[in-house]
């Protein structure tokens, strides 16, 4: 299936731990994104990569570090997790920066 996939779908962890979320797209897109959706369903962009280069880096704590090993993958590593990091994290991709975006299924992160 052509899609944007994320792993894991659910992630429950304790404060202070380090965790990673992986994202892969097989749509042949050159731009990938990470979004955070809070408990009130507000969606906010965190990062965007175009051809493996970081082009958007919104005001996000430096505990969050994206890594794009190639155009098809954009992973998110989070250090020293805090309670406020609990949210649903979505990966998305598009062909170019001004085109329709396609979202992954989301990763629900719960920090206890």
């Amino acid at each position: 299936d052509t899609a944007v996939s994320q792993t894991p779908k659910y992630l429950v962890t304790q404060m202070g731990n380090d965790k990673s979320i992986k994202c892969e797209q097989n749509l042949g897109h050159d731009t990938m994104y990470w979004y955070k959706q809070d408990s009130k369903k507000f969606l906010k962009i965190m990062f965007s990569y175009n051809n493996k280069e970081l082009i958007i880096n919104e005001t996000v704590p430096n505990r969050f570090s994206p890594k794009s090993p190639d155009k098809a993958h954009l992973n998110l590593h989070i250090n020293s997790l805090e309670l406020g990091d609990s949210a649903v994290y979505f990966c998305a991709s598009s062909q170019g920066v001004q085109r329709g975006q396609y979202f992954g299924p989301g990763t629900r992160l719960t920090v206890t």
Partner: protein
Amino acid sequence: GIQVEQSPPDLILQEGANSTLRCNFSDSVNNLQWFHQNPWGQLINLFYIPSGTKQNGRLSATTVATERYSLLYISSSQTTDSGVYFCAVEETGGSYIPTFGRGTSLIVHP
């Protein structure tokens, strides 16, 4: 930054009814998208529509960029249309930062 307001915030319909969702934005944009988030959380791209009108089945969208609004029309609504509809814009100026509205939550009853 650009402000995006969606209305109404909540909408309840009977199956078969038509509805119009609105997205107002405070500045000129070079990208506008409509998304549907279903009750299981999946976000689906409905339209990429920085200007003009597009139709896809029972859904259509119109963006009037000069007047800074976009409308999403849902005709003959079905229970599967339930969910949250988001509008997302990118402000003209090259930032490429999408800003989402707070969404319209739609419930369609059978």
